[in-house]
């Protein structure tokens, strides 16, 4: 996989999310992703950014245009230095939440992505990476 472009965004406050979402959508449209694909991508991003703001007081959001086997995609990375997730398996289950949300954030974001990766270390922070390919359904 090759990275064609990379942008970093500091996400500290709620309105920062909109700037990030808009840029991700813009780039997804630019590589020719369908409107449904774009919508799924930014909805997943919205869920993951919210987690960062709620549990870790913000973090860094990265947007990359990547290419693999001649197919372009958008890779989003969310990295925070928050408390981390104790039980990843539990956190990935529908309906599980330590906050007062519906518990759809992580599993929902995974369903909306073509590729999903999460790494978390208690006390150190969490990094989530998702990819949606241009031709991903």
């Amino acid at each position, binding site marked *: 996989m090759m990275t064609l472009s990379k942008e970093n965004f500091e996400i500290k406050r*709620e*309105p920062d*999310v*909109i700037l990030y*979402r*808009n840029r991700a*959508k813009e780039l997804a449209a630019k590589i020719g992703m369908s*409107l*449904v694909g*774009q*919508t*799924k991508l*930014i*909805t997943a991003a*919205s*869920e993951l950014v*919210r987690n960062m703001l709620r549990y870790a007081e913000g973090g860094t959001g990265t947007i990359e245009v990547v290419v693999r086997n001649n197919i372009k995609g958008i890779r989003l990375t969310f990295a925070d230095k928050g408390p981390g997730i104790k039980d990843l398996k539990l956190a990935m289950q*529908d309906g599980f939440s330590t906050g007062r*949300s*519906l518990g*759809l*954030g992580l*599993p*929902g974001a995974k*369903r*909306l992505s073509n590729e999903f990766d999460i790494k978390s270390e208690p006390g150190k922070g969490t990094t989530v990476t998702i990819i949606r390919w241009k031709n991903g359904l």
Partner: protein
Amino acid sequence: MDRIPILKMGEFLLVTIQVDLYDRLALTLESDLMNMVSRTEARGVLIDISAVSIVDSFMGRILGNIASMSKIMDAETVVVGMQPAVAITLVELGLTLSGVHTALDVEMGMELLRKKIGPTPTDEEDLYDDII
């Protein structure tokens, strides 16, 4: 602070969301709407989301909350204008928007609201006049 305007149209309240919402803004809309329902004794709330390009789990929860809070204040809620891509995404996200009435556009939403709350008192009087 940013606010979403709420318009009063007879016994209905009309909200057209024309900006992308962040959580605080959605929460403000929720409480503004409930205050308006109480103050104006509105019987219905119509929320137009045709300009909204993203409904995530938080926004979905707020829409559900507005519907159930309105219900216990004797008002019906109809959400209209959802973009196809947003609907596809919502279902995949796992959100069903249960308890929220939906219609395709504002016109059909208004019709649905009227049907939900039944004839207004003035309509009834007219009917009565006709019988006499």
